[in-house]
């Protein structure tokens, strides 16, 4: 089990405030500098530096051939990335927004996820597909989807998502270094979240697939990832007033899933709530709740509950606050964890 990284103060290099967007950009830059086979491609990633400016400066530093503005066609982008990977390159594809990755789903499901398997291991595809996801940024329709359920249901893909500035760097580096395809989901509304972070002595690149306990607690476990981590951390603080000492697990990787870390936590606390923005029905929480229950049934004092987006198309910006799981909704779920049974 992995616990939270050592506090920034203990690091050698000087830290300064950095945003998640900057950490992601830095991860791309460092990967490209270290490995000449890493190529970035997508819509507006070159001259403009991406609509979220994650790729800012890459075309200038590495040239148009390493950071390429493609024609506007997501299936074409991912499909050509497959060919590039077949030839030994390590493409990093940017999808401009979650919903605009959908045209590429056939390439992703039928080729990216399956190529290693289809060729008996002869032709792995080390492709990273960066998907900015989730809401809370006031985007109009099609700009706030949480599509991780589609990727999770596709064997052959890794699905990774950072929630902190440090992980944004470390996990993106690890994803690009992975010999398997990774759907790297970037929580849009955390792009501008800040943390003290040293780009010059970045955290050791951890293997992907490890969850991390972000807050230790004994009453119940909040299992979450990406955009919902800050919500859960805030809820955990607020819960102290109610007498609940909540543990918070940041999954970081949905595939592979860290059953060990999650299971150990839930076995300790005996209660769990899964929190995510994606729609509840058929969403990631079902899988998580089901596997936690399979593994920890006799430790559970109450069913694993889920706090998720409603089962509706993502609402218009003026309504999104009603849809997004917030602190209150998380606390309400914790309150439903049958505490009376304890006494």
């Amino acid at each position, binding site marked *: 089990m992995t616990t939270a990284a050592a506090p920034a103060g203990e690091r050698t290099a000087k830290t300064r405030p950095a945003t998640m967007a900057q950490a992601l950009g830095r991860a791309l830059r460092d990967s490209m500098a270290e490995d000449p086979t890493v190529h970035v491609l997508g819509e507006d990633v070159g001259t403009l530096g991406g609509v979220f400016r994650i790729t800012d400066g890459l075309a200038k530093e590495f040239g148009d051939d390493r950071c390429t503005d493609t*024609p506007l066609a997501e299936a074409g982008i991912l499909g050509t990335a497959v060919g590039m990977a077949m030839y030994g390159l390590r493409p990093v594809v940017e999808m401009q927004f979650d919903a605009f990755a959908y045209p590429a789903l056939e390439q992703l499901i039928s080729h990216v996820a399956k190529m290693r398997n289809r060729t008996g291991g002869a032709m792995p595809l080390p492709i990273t597909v960066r998907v900015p996801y989730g809401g809370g940024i006031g985007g*109009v329709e099609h700009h706030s989807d949480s599509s991780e359920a589609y990727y999770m249901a596709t064997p052959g893909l890794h699905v990774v998502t950072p929630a902190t500035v440090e992980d944004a760097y470390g996990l993106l580096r690890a994803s690009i270094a992975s010999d398997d395809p990774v759907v790297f989901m970037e929580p849009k509304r955390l792009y501008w979240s800040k943390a003290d972070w040293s780009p010059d002595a970045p955290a050791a690149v951890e293997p992907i697939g490890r969850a991390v306990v972000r807050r230790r607690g004994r009453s119940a476990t909040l299992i979450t990832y990406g955009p919902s981590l800050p919500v859960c951390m805030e809820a955990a603080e607020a819960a102290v007033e109610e007498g609940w000492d909540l543990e918070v697990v940041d999954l970081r990787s949905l595939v592979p899933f860290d059953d060990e870390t999650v299971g150990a936590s839930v076995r300790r606390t005996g209660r769990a709530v899964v929190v995510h923005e994606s729609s509840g029905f058929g969403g990631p929480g079902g899988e998580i709740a089901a596997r936690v229950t399979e593994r920890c049934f006799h430790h559970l004092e109450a069913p694993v509950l889920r706090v998720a987006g409603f089962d509706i198309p993502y609402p218009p910006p003026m309504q999104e606050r009603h849809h997004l799981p917030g602190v209150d909704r998380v606390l309400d779920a914790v309150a439903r964890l049958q505490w009376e049974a304890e006494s």
Partner: protein
Amino acid sequence: MTVQELPGAAAYRPTPPPAWKPLTDPAPLLPDPEPYRVLGTDAAGDADPGLLLRLYAELVRGRRYNAQATALTKQGRLAVYPSSTGQEACETAAALVLEDQDWLFPSYRDTLAAVARGLDPVEALTLLRGDRHSGYDPREHRIAPLCTPLATQLPHAVGLAHAARLRGDDVVALAMVGDGGTSEGDFHEALNFAAVWRAPVVFFVQNNGFAISVPLAKQTAAPSLAHKAVGYGMPGRLVDGNDAVAVHQVLGEAVARARSGGGPTLVEAVTYRMDAHTNADDATRYRTDSEVEAWRAHDPIQLLERELAGRGLLDDGVREEARASAERMAAALRERMNADPVLDPMDLFAHVYAEQTTQLREQAALLRAESEVEQDQRHDQQDRDGTEEGR
């Protein structure tokens, strides 16, 4: 006679080569090498003065509409606005060539076309204000919802036009898309279906030079986007998109062709987006001022004014009336957009399905309970505040 049997979609089978016959003669499908123009040419003299004046009023109004909508983003009244400043000739002509029963399929950039067609500007902008996804009933106005996923509206237009034709209705669909959108697979599939079905559709590409930051040279290596028509067996037309009269004429002909059973046409209008991609974009990152200035000299309103002036149709009265009408529209828009939309959180669950599922009913109940708690707290707070104030 079924649609499949109509002349043209006839028996093209690659029978043995000695008898090989192409389905259509490619020559008539090819666009002219230069964009078609009327203004500033001899042909302009034949243009109907009424049309010129109508277009002029619309263009002035359209320009003002773009400016007002952009201003509304600064005041936080719109979540985002993709301006069509510089493209008013295209937007306006697309609206004017359609009959009442025809359908318009706009993209996110084409609120002006919807407004020029008669849609209430507030309804047109609702999506971009952010209170609901679509501010109008598409069937009432024969305007499809503004479409964000690029080129996905094109097959819709084909299907709708095909359906109308199967039912014997006189309906043409005009679908708008940008230069960038032509690279999407949906563009290809839509044009191909339309040609095979001879659907009464006009595909209208506004080539404004950029897909956000990506210039056309990185988008295509084709002689022009209009040349793509050949590969579907439909005619391609290339037109100066800043020449309102030319666009109106070319689109009008394409609509007439579709209406008379002639099948689809691909029209490319060469134009330029004078503003950034949206208010959130920084265009200086990818284009030079001098390029923008060069296009300013080819401004659609100025082109038209020059013609009107030359023909003695542009006196101060005309100018003033156009300006005043535009200002009235802008003022009304400003005022109406100043009100906060009243929203019911329960709307979230109202239109997911015809009938709410058990699951959605449960979720609605949850939200309702939350809202009640919130409201109680607000009231408590107000009471407290009131008490405090009362002291």
